[in-house]
């Protein structure tokens, strides 16, 4: 009986250890000043997006430049569902009355918004998942462009190029942590499932996997949908943290780049890598920002960050985590 407990613990160790580690960080951040708290919340939200990216990119070996689509789509959906009715009357007077009179609780709002992204991923994924490598990346990017152009023009629902303000803010440290934990569990369960295994098999050897009966397109599609759901929720939290949605200044395109770099720096072949990349880049970003103040030249921090990314990619091409999970402690190892 005890052995079985140990087995289950060992199976979930990669995700448990990450959750415990993050819990410590969050608890410590709570003691710190508000600026640290906000920085950690932001990093946790980015982490959800990167976990979403990992679920698809890490397991399939395909690249996606289009995951910000899911952030945008879910963010607006959540705004339509959860903004206070009075605010909606002012900001979006011409919205469909169903949305206009609705004031959903934020949690089902976030989940529904995530589901919308999952659904979108299913529709666009059916054709896209047949493509390979860099072509798939451009395909997802095309979807991103189409969706953002349409949302930018859709004034009555999105305020177009200007900013939609007045979203309910509910993302504090532990909320963000809770969502990260949820994302980690989903991603890990998928990793361990036969679907995750089949997809990784197709990543490592496409021809052999096909010969062994793996339906590659279907497996990619499953990962794409799950990953869209997670990323979409990340997008929801992002806008409910800042209380605003804007598409100005290439915000979502830049988010695409930075999250991909985070995943590569951490290591795209393990969940630990996804988490480590976000933690490393966030710490370096904030550290450099603090360090550039006494020097008095703003902008040095960003340059330092770019150099840091290049150095990591050069000396550790498989990322900080190197494709591994946090090693199992001795008391969980199977004896004999």
């Amino acid at each position, binding site marked *: 009986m005890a052995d079985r407990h140990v087995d289950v613990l060992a199976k979930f160790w990669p995700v448990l250890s990450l959750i415990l580690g993050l819990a410590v960080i969050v608890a410590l951040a709570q003691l710190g000043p508000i600026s640290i708290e906000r920085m950690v919340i932001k990093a946790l939200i980015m982490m959800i997006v990167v976990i979403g990216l990992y679920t698809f990119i890490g397991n399939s070996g395909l*690249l996606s430049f289009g995951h910000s689509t899911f952030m945008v789509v879910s963010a607006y959906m959540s705004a339509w569902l959860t903004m206070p009715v009075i605010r909606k009357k002012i900001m979006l007077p011409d919205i469909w009355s169903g949305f206009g009179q609705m004031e959903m609780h934020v949690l089902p709002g976030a989940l529904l918004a995530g589901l919308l992204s999952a659904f979108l991923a299913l529709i666009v994924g059916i*054709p*896209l998942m*047949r*493509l*390979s*490598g*860099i*072509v798939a990346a*451009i*395909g997802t*990017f*095309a*979807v991103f*462009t*189409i969706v953002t*152009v*349409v949302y*930018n*023009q859709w004034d009555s629902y999105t305020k177009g190029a200007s900013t939609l303000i007045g979203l309910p803010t509910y993302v504090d440290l532990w909320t963000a942590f809770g969502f990260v934990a949820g994302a980690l569990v989903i991603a890990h369960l998928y990793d361990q499932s036969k679907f995750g295994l089949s997809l990784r098999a197709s990543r490592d050897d*496409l*021809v052999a996997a096909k010969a062994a009966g793996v339906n590659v397109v279907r497996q990619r599609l499953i990962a794409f949908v799950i990953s869209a759901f997670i990323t979409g929720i990340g997008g929801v939290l992002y806008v409910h943290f800042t209380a605003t949605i804007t598409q100005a200044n*290439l915000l979502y*395109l830049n988010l695409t*780049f930075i999250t*991909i*770099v985070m995943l*590569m*720096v951490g290591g*795209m072949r393990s969940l630990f890598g996804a988490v480590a990349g976000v933690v490393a880049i966030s710490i370096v970003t904030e550290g450099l920002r603090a360090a550039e103040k006494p020097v008095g*030249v*703003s*902008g*040095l921090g*960003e*340059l330092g*960050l*770019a*150099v840091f*990314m*290049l150095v990591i*990619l*050069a000396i550790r*091409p498989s990322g900080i985590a190197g494709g591994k999970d946090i090693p199992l402690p001795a008391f969980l190892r199977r004896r004999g």
Partner: protein
Amino acid sequence: MIFLQYAIDALSVGGLYALAALGIGLIFGIMRLVNFAHGDLLMMGCYAMFMLAAAIWPVTILGGVVIAILVAVITERIAFRPLRSADPTILLAASFAVSFFLQNFVLMIMGGRALGVDIVPALNQHIVWDSLSISVLNLFTIALSVILMGGLSLFLARTRIGIHMRAASEDVRMARMLGVRVNLVVATAFAISGLLAGAAAIVVLGKTGLVLPTMGLRLTLIAFVAVIVGGMGSLTGAVIGGYAVGILEVVLGGLLPLVILPYREALIFTVVLLFLLFRPGGIIRVAALKERV
């Protein structure tokens, strides 16, 4: 007449895109790097021209092109050479980092506001002939792109290093064993991509008259699409892809009613998406890129 007007517009926009696509396609062919920092070479060239705007125009233009070439060669030496054997995804992430560096470097020195400049006033003239009004810049763009493309194909066909370059893009390991100096070849390819970016910079700056740290991004993305549509790894494909996207843009701009015009970008990418779904290998398929079993 209206047709001729459109044709000139399309050829000039297409020429610009073809130049950018060639720069990206050349590097991809040799080292499987999708260089997202290509547009930032153009941006650096534009800023150099902005700073040299007070000089006589040949100095301004030459200065911009030289800076673009220098930046290209330096990024290769410092950022991409240590990663030569890395996975294409890692190379791509590295080029994001390079792009991020260059943009923030300019942001730090010049600030983030758009700055106006008029490098060669003569380019802004229009030649009016009957009902036609042709901008000198458009003619200049067409000529420039044709000359550079011709020059590049001569270079690749006739010179020793050009032939080495083609060999390396077929099979780098084999080429190295046969005595091709890969470092020199790759550095030359980057210099050429810098030259192409510098030439594109003249056109872009002549057209918009504005410099911005993020100005290179759109061209990078369009060129990237052009390369994929044309067929990755084929330079002819990159040129065809560039013209195809440019022509599509001008035709849609001319035909669409005003209401739909804001959606032009979305339509272009819809066409690209459909194209990729039906012909994922691009217009020209390259045998060297097919995975062997």
